[in-house]
């Protein structure tokens, strides 16, 4: 599992990229990825292209990110979800909280 983050040139958008299993063991790394971003970006993108697995604690981490990014005002997109990941997100109806592509 690796988690990396990249701030856009204008500092408005933070992209967090996840590879491998997105589960409880990534807790700290995922937090670091958005907490260390310094200035608060307006938009967040979580790229799940390399994520093979997502468990309920990963859902919890996404909720933490959402809370960090302003709860109902948060602008967070989850992109490149494979069918398994998408299934987990849709059973929990997370499309009500995140833009999922």
């Amino acid at each position, binding site marked *: 599992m690796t988690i990396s983050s990249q701030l856009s040139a204008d500092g408005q958008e933070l992209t967090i990229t996840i590879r491998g299993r997105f589960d409880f063991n990534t807790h700290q790394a995922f937090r670091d990825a958005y907490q260390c971003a310094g200035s608060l970006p307006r938009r967040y993108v979580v790229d799940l292209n390399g994520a093979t697995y997502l468990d*309920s*604690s990963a859902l*919890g981490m996404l*909720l933490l990110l959402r809370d960090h990014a302003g709860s109902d005002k948060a602008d967070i997109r989850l992109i490149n979800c494979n069918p398994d990941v998408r299934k987990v997100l849709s*059973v*929990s109806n997370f499309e009500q909280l995140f833009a999922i592509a």
Partner: protein
Amino acid sequence: MPRRLSILIAEDGAADRMLLAAIVRRQGHHVVTAANGAEAVELFERERPQLVLMDALMPVMDGFEAAQQIKQLAGNELVPIIFLTSLTENEALVRCLEAGGDDFIAKPYNPIILEAKIQAMHRLRRLQATVLEQRDLIGRRNQQLLDEQRAAKAIFDKVAHAGCLNAPNIRYRQSPRALFNGDLLLAAQAPAGRMFVLLGDFTGHGLPAAIGAMPLAETFYGMTAKGYSSNQILRDINAKLKLILPVEMFCCATFLDINLEQGILRVWNGGLPDGYLIKAVDGARLPLRSRHLPLGVREATSFDDTFETLPLAPGDRLLLLSDGLLESCNADDQLFGEQRLLAVLESNSDPATLFDDIQEALHDFHGQILDDLSLVEVSMIGEPGAVAPHPLHVYPLGSRELRPRDWSTCFELRPGSLRSADPLPMAMQLLLQISPLRYRVGTIFTVLTELYANAVEHGVLLLDSSIKSDAEGFASYYRERQRRLDALDEGFVSIEFTVRSEGAKGYLRIAVRDSGPGFDVQRALNQQYCSEYLGGRGLRMIRQLSERFYWQPDGKVLNVEFHWSGHA
């Protein structure tokens, strides 16, 4: 820092033995000596030295045999054995190590190397001792934790089993550790012959999940007993969990509101895998899909408590499961998965064995019993409307109960409140104050529910029950009900309670009036005798359950009386 050890020297040559003992003593260690292997084993048992220097070839018992026996006697404790040897063939040296030796030193002895080896072995001893100490500590702590969890579970069971999990129509499988895996199963008889079932799955494991389960169970049972609707209970649970849980924690849950008498199942699923309603008549499987965010995620203001409504008939079965079931892995790291579950459901021919079939499939798949999943089956037994009329209760009354009563009160609900409020719990709280009626509070609630639903649906909303004659119509009936309720801008339902008592006798009269055009009550009653509608059994039931049921000729007001008589 070098440490003084007690060391056993086993050597058959007297000169060699004395020489070695002298060297080792000079280095500050305490020495005991043996002249052969048998003596060495005996001395070891008696003196328990910390390290052994062992000659390989000795009479009576050789060093290899003695080393094996000493290792066995030492058990978990590391007693290093250094072989003293003039052997040079590799094979013999290997034999030393195989017999349990930890090292060897060649004759003639170099005192510096000997002492270095002794100290190196001592370090290993200490390491082993530390590992053992820590292992025992972890073992003790773990035992303590399990004991605490057992105690916590016992406390929780008092709360969780306050309901009717042991009802004959409920089968469930939940390990004793389920609570600490975050799984939670609650069931309660609700007023008006209904049953509420909640299966929950908290994110995370251990204590935090178990702690969250406590207020959930309390709210569920407390509000059910007070007659609150499933929507209100769910809203309260969500609000409570949102308040107490940290942001990253939530509870996936399915709430079943089962009303077999009315033939109605209401389902709310937030985040659990599909449950199933399996119809008795044709074996059809209706999925109970997750349509909502889990509990504890949404603020109260944006929480969606919309239930799905499905028709329910005797013999139908409801199946709920936690995702532990689908996500359980076997030894080859394969998931059990939805497809395997569906295959079991598909191949089942006798619904009565379905629960066992699933258990068996799980067992075959894993080769063992798993302890982190929940499976529940609720079967619909009993005839709808088969509620026996309660007999008049005759019971002793204290002097307080004999004081005359004479009062009435009236609620009137207008569109805003018809949409959002449920007047029944409040009304029931009021009626609970009348002690002679407490014994019949369930019946009264049933009747009141019927009267209120009849007034809202047929009086105010002008819905036609006959739409409900099949499953499709059933769903559209409830959609239409919601649509009309949302659009409602005039109309009312009023409920008047009158209580009178004189001495030991008394009665409660409930009069329900609505703004509708009224209806031919007698005709509706007669019709219902021969109707096969899914709904519309209400009026007949009211007549069965009360002492008196009468109405105005225009059918705009229905009156129901409950009588009591006691003896002083």
